[in-house]
């Protein structure tokens, strides 16, 4: 299990605050601006990066992340390119945990063994592969864990019944609680629901648990930071990039600044008073 992930959560806990994780798609809107965006995020309080591996058919994602994936693919982003972005990020940020998030097909085509080797060499800490449930562990999870990558599991409202132990069995790094039954960037969950879910999750595992899907505002982030060990914001961040791309000519510097400002607002709000 990755030291960077556990240390990140341990430090946050010692400071009595929750971890802020930010999702962006690799190569959105371009490989170069990705690097600048990641630096700006870390600069402005992101504790952990979830780097999306673009896929043409992201089954569990809403319109914002679908569009981000397609923008990146259109600009030529590949899995190899994503690993390059990860590698240069790692060189600049030796301590910030970096998790790759995406779908299985591009990895399957890249080759499982080559992917595990190259991800480790790039300094990746963990993987979230949306379409690999525990039932398909022999595809990637087992080998990735053996090699030292954390295989991060999504726990959803539909998991909370008798499936929870199945999902937790080989879980590594942290638990990603998907607060809504639904796709990314659509609805938001009620605080009470999240509270109840966390009571259940904490009974079953000592791994830290973060909440994601549907968190858009600093207020929501602050509220959830009281319940959860971490908060992940994705679609809302990606929408800022989308807006910048919709303008007549893309002003990368301005984009990077707005990403930073939004990230800062989240991290400030999450400081527990």
């Amino acid at each position, binding site marked *: 299990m990755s030291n960077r992930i556990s240390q990140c959560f341990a430090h946050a806990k010692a400071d009595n605050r929750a971890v802020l994780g930010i999702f962006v798609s690799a190569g959105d809107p371009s490989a170069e601006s990705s690097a600048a965006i990641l630096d700006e995020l870390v600069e402005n309080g992101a504790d952990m990066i979830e780097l999306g591996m*673009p*896929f*043409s*058919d*992201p*089954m*569990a994602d*809403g*319109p914002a992340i*679908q569009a981000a994936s*397609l923008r990146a*693919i259109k600009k030529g982003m*590949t*899995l*190899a390119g994503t690993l390059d972005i990860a590698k240069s990020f790692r060189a600049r940020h030796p301590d910030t945990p970096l998790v790759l998030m995406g*779908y*299985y*097909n*591009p*990895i*399957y*085509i*890249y080759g499982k063994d080559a992917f595990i080797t190259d991800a480790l060499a790039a300094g990746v800490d963990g993987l979230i592969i*949306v*379409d*690999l*449930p525990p*039932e*398909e562990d022999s595809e990637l999870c087992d080998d990735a864990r053996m090699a030292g990558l954390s295989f991060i*599991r*999504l*726990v*959803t*409202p*539909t*998991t909370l*019944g008798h*499936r929870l132990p199945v*999902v937790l069995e080989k879980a590594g790094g942290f638990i990603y609680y*998907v607060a*809504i*039954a*639904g*796709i990314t960037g*659509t*609805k938001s969950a009620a605080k009470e629901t999240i509270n109840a879910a966390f009571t259940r999750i904490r009974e079953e595992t000592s791994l830290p648990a973060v909440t994601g899907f549907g968190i858009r505002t600093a207020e929501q982030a602050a509220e959830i930071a009281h319940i959860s060990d971490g908060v992940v914001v994705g679609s809302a961040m990606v929408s800022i990039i989308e807006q910048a791309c919709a303008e007549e000519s893309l002003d990368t510097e301005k984009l990077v600044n707005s990403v930073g400002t939004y990230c800062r607002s989240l991290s400030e709000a999450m400081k527990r008073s």
Partner: protein
Amino acid sequence: MGDTAPNSYKTLPDEAGRFGIHGGRFVAETLMPLILEVEKAYITTKSDPGFETELLYYQKHYIGRPSPLYFAPRLTKHFDGAKLYLKRDELNHTGAHKINNVLGQALLAKRMGKTKIIAETGAGQHGVATATACALFNLDCEVFMGAEDVRRQKPNVDRMRLLGAKVHPVTSGTSTLKDAMNEALRYWVANPETHFYIIGTVAGPHPYPEMVRDFQSVIGKETKEQIKQAEGRLPDALIACIGGGSNAMGLFHPFLDDESVAIYGVEAAGHGIETGEHAASLTGGEPGILHGNRTYLLQTKEGQIKDAHSISAGLDYPGIGPEHAWLHDIGRVNYVSATDEEALDMFHLCSRLEGIIPALEPSHALAFASKFLPSLDKDKIVILNMCGRGDKDLEAVLPLLEARSKL
């Protein structure tokens, strides 16, 4: 299935839903409990004699089964080779084979206590069949259809609306069948408690490929009886078109262990395989993972899914059911292809020679028949699945035939 021998081709999928390396359950965690629930319900239901009786009742009195097995004299004469029989599933209520599967799944959904149904559709035939069953059983119906297909299959969109379904035009991705399936899955992820997803072909996560195959196998089972009646023996070959592969699997499956029967699946070659604009995933694709299963997919060398192209909306899908992928790997079934142009020719020819207006999908099967039958002796017997009628295609096809001076 009861009739499986040790060296049978009919023992799969295994418990993990695999057909060789293909199949499986590659879905998001939110869906996993749902597909496990469907699997459990299907296992109990299929061995329930009450369910079988109910299904048989609707097959007979509502769909109009058994569909005839018809000797096509003028096409046979025209091709000047083997005898051609057509399995007339285009005569089914709603005009295609899709209703065979939909009735089975709708009855299952009802038994599971679900009141709302989701479906994806390409040509609109599966959407119409689903809307029909939902009207019959008083279920809510939401159909996802690529915006491009909404345009080219307008009559079916109108039928669905009349039947009470809500049609969602899908504009994400490339606005065709694969995106409709993405959107249907997304909708299911967001409404897991109330909804049942009726997948329209032998694809998707386990248990769908198996379940849809079982419901469509009525085609092959009837055919086997009927050809024995008509000719006193098994056919020499079977031909069916392949989008996801459900009409083909329905015809093929009961014959898989009859080694003397050669089997041909016809994929859509679009503008020609060499142009890259086609929907032939076995001929021009590589194994990969999409929509919950591993199978052959049209994709880039980086693993991004490519657009399929076919004149037929029902074949315009970049994947194929996992059981076909396996039958291809082991060589039991031969997979060939036919172009848009060849299908158009057959659309016209079959209408003129047999008075049967075929859908564009089985027109692809006819295109292969037109090349294959002349190579066979006159005493050989070939059966082709006439899986749908062409009314839905007239708007798209007539201008093309006029441009070719065929009308």
